[in-house]
């Protein structure tokens, strides 16, 4: 189970090593080992927290995409029989036929990195190295006209990408139907 590569938050281990080995009340557990945390998926925050070192270009991503992604998502990310469309849909969200893609819908570029890294390619999730993930994310963003052909994606540039639908999400306002719509139930 602990085979996936991920960035190890070294600071956590330095702190953990100095702590008691077991929990205070029930005396269970011990500090996680570096290998155990490396075996978890790299969880990437919208501010870029968790992104590893490395970088990738649009050109490199075109190669990765053709080899690993195009068979399901189409040669230009237009979607196929198995994989969702990754491009297009701009201006469709408020229409009768919305097309939700990375370009038209996803609010954070970090989510694309996180998801490609943890879940793609579908049949071999975790296959791509961090540089390949940066590259293929760069290529997908470029296909959508969000970043330039010569852009380089890394831990610094990726969180600053201005996603078109960044402000397209609103809080849950339910109940929104019926007599209790003004009354929020307790948790």
């Amino acid at each position, binding site marked *: 189970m602990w085979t996936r590569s991920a960035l190890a938050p070294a600071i956590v281990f330095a702190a953990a090593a100095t702590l008691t080995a077991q929990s205070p009340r029930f005396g269970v557990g011990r500090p996680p080992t570096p290998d155990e945390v490396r075996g978890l998926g790299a969880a990437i925050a919208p501010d870029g927290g968790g992104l590893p070192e490395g970088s990738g270009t649009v050109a490199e991503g075109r190669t990765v995409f053709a080899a690993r992604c195009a068979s399901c998502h189409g040669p230009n990310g237009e979607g196929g029989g198995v994989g969702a469309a990754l491009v297009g849909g701009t201006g469709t969200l408020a229409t009768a036929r919305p097309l939700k893609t990375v370009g038209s819908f996803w609010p954070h570029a970090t989510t694309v990195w996180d998801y490609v890294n943890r879940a793609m390619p579908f049949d071999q999730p*975790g296959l791509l190295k961090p540089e390949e993930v940066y590259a293929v994310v760069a290529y997908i963003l470029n296909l959508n006209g969000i970043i330039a052909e010569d852009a380089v994606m890394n831990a610094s540039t990726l969180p600053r990408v201005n996603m078109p639908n960044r402000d*397209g999400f609103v809080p*849950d306002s339910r109940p929104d139907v019926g007599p209790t719509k003004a009354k929020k139930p307790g948790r």
Partner: protein
Amino acid sequence: MSNIRRSSRRQILRMTAALGGGLVAQRQKLLAWDTPGKLGAPLGPYGERSPFEKAVRWHRDSKTPETGSCFTPLQASVGTITPSSLHYERHHAGIPTIDPSQHRLVIHGMVDRPLSLTMAEIQRLPSITRTLVLECGGNSAGEWAAKTGPDVQRSYGLVSCSEWTGVPLATLLAEVGVKAGASWVIAEGADACRMERSIPLSKAMDNTLLAYGQNGEMIRPSQGYPLRLINPGWEGNTNVKWLHSLKLTNQAYMARDETSKYSDLMPDGKARIFTYRMEAKSVITFPSGGQTLPGVGLYELTGLAWSGSGKIERVEITTDGGRTWTAAQLQEPRLPIALTRFRMPWRFDGREAVIASRAIDETGYIQPSREDLIAARGMNSIYHFNGTKFWRVQADGTVTNVDA
């Protein structure tokens, strides 16, 4: 085998009502003496249902069968508990095989004492047991369209109810010591895609369960063996299976399954995010689409109601297409955030009847009509459809869906 044995219990009910109790005695005699002198099957280590029982889950054919949904056969359900073997499923990268002796839960991030726990350690902690409904956020997604689902399994079957046993997450959060400023828990599963969701710390402290038991045994592999989150009343996707990581953070991580998916697109093009709660809902399971009433007579109309906000207070039934509504009997005890069975005697007189149920929960929330939902949310929100479901009992006894 006698025809009577093969008949549905409703048919027996009908005949019994029509002819009195004589048939009951005849039925018992047939059952007891069908095969005199022949021994039955020997003792066995793990039970199976009768070979005469055929209800199974349904799923679409797919080139990628490791992702998709399995729908519970609600039309065959009795009572309120879903057998573990028929519990609905939604997977994103297949069902992992996990040796519990090798499995660990890592709690890390903004905590004073990061911990790695074995299953044996988790099972040593004080546990609780709760009967809870679990419903996929995308259950009934097809019902937004005018052409509604043909049967209750395929249109409402991503809902199930189990007795879950585990440790309140709050117990372990106290052990790790949550740092000031932490407000979210990022939960991750050990399936191939490492599915992740962001859970507000307030929910985690309130009633989130680290569950390892389901219906009296360890959770099935398809339900997250050996450990999963249970977030009472919240959409199924947040109940992360094969749980191996909980990371305390000061922000939601905006995972794919809480932004691109499981967000609800409104007519103005904005999408509601973090739409966790499953609101009150009900559906008639008998008679329902695809079934046939064998003739006129008295039947027990029955179905299931539930609410992510608490107990079911009342269920109303119409048999005249929504003109009049009558309160159904509710099976006690009514448990909060659990399936509640409702029942009503009903005489089918051979004339077409359009039937539906609507649930009212303890907050006063009334299950809306499809039309009211569409008026509030349009037709493209995909998730959280909880509208009333109408069935048409035709004059010949066949039951179909009712298209809008």
